[in-house]
């Protein structure tokens, strides 16, 4: 006799449910594939574009994989430059620090593409004789890929299995696509205890009721899903692991969602940190991410900048930030995205405070602020987005509310819908090219401000037989200082070294044979002199990897 397997009713329900998801997913996938030119691209497609760059420009571009993530995706570094790259200044350009910020990776890749391919940047390419670019286009490939997966949601965490809600169980309550549209949106449940209500100006939008204004909530609001572990919370522990942009050492948020077992715990965060620490030539880092200190420069705060563990930018570095912000606005103009502070444990602040380099960050795009609405309800971002989308003919940003049966709310009116994932932080793909162009031209102009070391006003004075005094000025002819003020205190930032190398018949009567110099500001100089007995040739060498090296021969 054959044994018979009996499935409980609810299992059959779930099985049917999963089938339904698969069908709708297939539909969405097809649409995506048809619209490659019109939409953001997945890891493989970005990788292909990067590979093409290095293939087509073998003398200028080199692509390497620093590591593979837990999700088996490459962490790419595209180096653009020529000659002795390690010994001349470099800029690091970093994208994808947040997995839900598709634009960031695209801006980083397009920067490389425009620099190497765009006829408009023909003359800027000469800059590559003097400066190089380290481009890390996608630091959150595991999370970013969620945009392209059967169930699309804004994901920040990598593929490391993680117990996000710290309950001892790993990934036990992920999102569920209840309406089968392939998108994770919100669900609202009509309930007298709810704290949410429909926005008076647009009933599609949910806002928190303000009891002090006589408003009454009548909806519960959650992200779309089932309470799979029956702990009363929805989707609090899904597939996501550690967030790249929360995994760094400055102001590291311990024991917080997505921050990992400790700072720099992940393969991708270690890979970029390890590379950058050995890359002594990097003088500044530009990050495409949620922080923005370019639309508005940071402000100086004496106390924050000078406490033992300083948390504010140093005074002179702020001036450079102001200069760069002005430059940014000349390129990006009115469309400059909103100024935003850094977050605890992020990459942008790490680059300044612990890596000791100038660090600039921009989202590249943010939803423009619109006029306040007529009612006294707070204008929500969602409302802004809908209106902006209407004005700009942008579609597919809202999923209409749709009734569903929800097993956790039997007999209740449950609807799924709301703002589509990713659209709040990422403009329609058709806008990306023009954003990328502006940012590329900004980066190139910024690069031209690099620190540049020189030896000027070299004088040799004969004081007597075989006795000479040599005087020289060490000058930084660039705009950036040879190091940031934070870099002056960070041990791993190479300082400018001035060295006089005598021949065997000479000896130094006065002056230092080797001197480690403090940072030299842009367009400034330091004067040094040496008293030397003997004759013949000698040389003076000065510089650092980040400001370049300069060497002169002198004959006595």
């Amino acid at each position, binding site marked *: 006799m054959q044994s018979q397997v009996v499935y409980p009713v609810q299992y059959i329900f779930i099985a049917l449910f999963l089938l339904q998801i698969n069908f709708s997913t297939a539909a969405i996938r097809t649409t995506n594939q048809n619209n490659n030119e019109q939409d953001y691209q997945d890891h493989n497609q970005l990788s292909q574009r990067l590979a093409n760059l290095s293939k087509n420009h073998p003398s200028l571009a080199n692509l390497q994989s620093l590591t593979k993530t837990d999700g088996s995706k490459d962490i790419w570094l595209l180096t653009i430059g020529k000659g002795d790259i390690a010994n001349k200044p470099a800029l690091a350009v970093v994208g994808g620090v947040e997995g839900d910020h598709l634009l960031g990776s695209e801006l980083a890749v397009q920067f490389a593409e425009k620099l190497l391919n765009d006829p408009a940047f023909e003359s800027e390419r000469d800059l590559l004789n003097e400066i190089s670019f380290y481009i890390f286009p996608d630091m959150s490939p595991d999370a970013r890929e969620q945009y392209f997966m059967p169930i699309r949601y804004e994901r920040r965490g990598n593929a490391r299995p993680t117990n996000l809600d*710290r*309950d*001892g*169980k790993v990934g036990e309550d992920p999102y569920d696509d209840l309406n089968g549209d392939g998108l994770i949106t919100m669900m609202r449940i009509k309930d007298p205890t709810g704290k949410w209500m429909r926005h008076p100006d647009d009933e599609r939008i949910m806002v928190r009721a303000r009891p002090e204004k006589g408003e009454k909530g009548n909806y519960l609001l959650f992200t779309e899903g089932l309470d799979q*572990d*029956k*702990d009363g919370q929805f989707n609090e522990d899904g597939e996501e692991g550690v967030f790249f942009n929360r995994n*760094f*050492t400055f102001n*590291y948020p*311990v*024991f917080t969602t997505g921050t990992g*077992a*400790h*700072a*720099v*715990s992940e393969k991708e965060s*270690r890979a970029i*940190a*390890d590379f950058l*620490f050995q890359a002594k030539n990097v003088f500044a880092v530009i990050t495409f991410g949620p922080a923005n200190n370019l639309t508005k420069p940071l402000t100086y705060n004496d106390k924050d900048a000078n406490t*033992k*563990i300083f948390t504010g930018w140093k005074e002179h570095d702020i001036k450079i930030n102001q200069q760069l912000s002005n430059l940014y606005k000349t390129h990006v103009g009115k469309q400059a995205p909103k100024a935003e502070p850094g977050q605890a444990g992020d990459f942008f602040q790490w680059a300044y405070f*612990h890596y000791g380099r100038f660090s600039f960050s921009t989202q590249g795009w943010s939803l423009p602020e619109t006029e306040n609405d007529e009612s006294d309800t707070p204008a929500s971002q969602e409302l802004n987005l809908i209106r902006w989308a209407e004005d700009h003919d942008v579609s597919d940003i809202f999923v209409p509310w749709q009734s569903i049966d929800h097993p956790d709310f039997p007999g209740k009116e449950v609807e799924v819908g709301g703002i589509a994932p990713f659209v709040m932080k990422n403009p329609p793909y058709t806008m990306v090219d023009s954003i990328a162009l502006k940012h590329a031209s900004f980066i190139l102009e910024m690069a031209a401000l690099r620190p540049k070391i020189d030896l000027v006003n070299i004088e040799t004075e004969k004081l007597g037989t075989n006795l000479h005094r040599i005087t020289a000025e060490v000058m930084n002819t660039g705009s950036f200082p040879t190091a940031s003020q934070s870099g002056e*205190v*960070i*041990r*791993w930032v*190479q*300082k400018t*070294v001035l*060295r006089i190398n005598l021949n065997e018949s000479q000896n130094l009567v006065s002056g*230092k*044979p*080797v001197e*480690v110099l403090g940072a030299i500001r842009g367009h400034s100089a330091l004067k040094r002199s040496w008293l030397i007995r003997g004759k013949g040739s000698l040389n003076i060498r000065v510089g*650092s990897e980040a400001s370049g090296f300069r060497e002169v021969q002198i004959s006595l």
Partner: protein
Amino acid sequence: MSDFKLALLFFLSLIALSVNAQQADGHALEEFFKASGSPVNPKVQISWNRYHTNEGLLDIYLKMAKTYPELVRLESIGKSHEGRDLWLLTITNHSNKPHHEKPGFWIDGNIHANEIQAAEVSLYTAWYLVENYHSNDFITQLLDEKAFYILPVMNPDGRENYMNKPNTANAPRSGTMPLDDDGDGVVGEDGFDDLNGDGHITQMRRQNPFGLYREDPDDARRLIRVKQGEFGEWELLGYEGYDRDVDGRINEDRDVGYYDHNRDWGWNWQPDYVQRGAYHYPFSLPETRAVRDFVLAHPNISGALTHHNTGGMFLRGPGVEQDQEYYLRDDLRVYDALGQMGEKLVPGYNYLVSYKDLYTVYGGQRDWFHLMRGAYTFTVELFSRYLLFHEKPLRRSRGFSDDYYTFDKHLLFEDAFVPWEEYFHPQFGKIQIGGFKKNYIRVHPGFMLEQDAHRIMAFSLYHAYHTPQLEITELKSKDLGGGQFEVTAVITNTRMIPTHSSINLEYHIDPPNYVEIIGPKVLAGMIVIDEDLNIVEEQLTNPEKLEVENISGMSIATVRWIIDGKENIGVLLNSVKGGKYSKVFED
């Protein structure tokens, strides 16, 4: 001889051996008579009055693992910067329960290169445990209940360098990764120079009519400062070396870079400008990363000791003042009890709070163990000046204490001192070189090592014994009628340390203790808060597997289920730090 006779001989000799073993206590062996508290004829013979190279240590590990396969597991948990194995011993009764299901106790040593006796002290514990298992009831119980994870040398490159290269008592502290310590763009170009070639870096002095030092009339080897307003005959020129890179400084960029493995851990890590010695980010060194991986994979580690020198201290955290908020009353009660016992067991050692009584340390190992892994941990600073003459030294009486000179002269017969000898220095001209050897001041003199190792071990065993030990002390049922029963289980933690420290509870470093009933259909489950007054808290989801947040030291937790039917009931207790246990219901 026939096989039978051979076998008989072998059998008889076994009997003879066991008779000897039994007689060891109270009667003389052929050659030995037992001293109390020490194995009379240990199978693994170790001289505890000398230090071992990495090779020497490995030889002992292998002997221990071979001699006591049921108690010792040897593994390499990673490689050092130079590719040396990081050897770890797991010591427990491996046959009664997997080690990871027992409360674990971590011991390490020699994280700092020059703190070499930390390895021997750690090894002594491992050795003592295995040599006394079976013959001592307490040790037997300990290895039946607990698992010891012992890493005698965390920094084998540093140990090798300290022993084999010319060094001082204070150097190197780090591993052997070269760094550009003076920031001039050249790495390691101006290290120590062993000018007299004796393997020790000692002092340089020069005769100078305007010097500020003169010979101590009590011990001519020693220079002391003259009084204000006087000139002496000598000037001190620092540690042996010359200005190799002619930058005006001596020994400022050693072959081995300055960094500190004990500033490289994941809790409250700060960069080098805040915390000197920090490297790039937490666990950016291969040795600490290997330990991290092991400790993360062994959350049963509930207590730990990390051995250092010097100063005679049991240091608890935090290393940083602001982190005090995470050490709550229940934690401090445990630390105080352990620390005070330590002070008693090891005379001259003090129980101290790191940030307050010593100095601030960001990113230290001990704080990571306590604050991110939930393990009660001490840093032990081995050896102190007190041990020289069992006197509290007079406070900064005569500069660098003359106790060390007296001790060296009368107890070590000047073995710890390199006599001053003339040398022609390329930059200073005629000088003298001499002073204490690198194996003095911080490292135990040979004859003192065994006693301290034993006392420190006694402290660690006391600590290990008090890691949480759970027992299902009661399992009872009550007939509620209609086929329903109420089953109540009482779990007792018979030791001082709770299953969850305060920070573990607050941030759920470990899951709760699970008490699971196996067998019957469970209708409801609850934690009993007060059995007498029937105050209970029902667990609405998964009532079979009750979650007990914490079981404090020396206390009980009571849980209850309402079940349908009463056959084949078992209870499983699973506590990450308190161990795994089960009990079958017997009516």
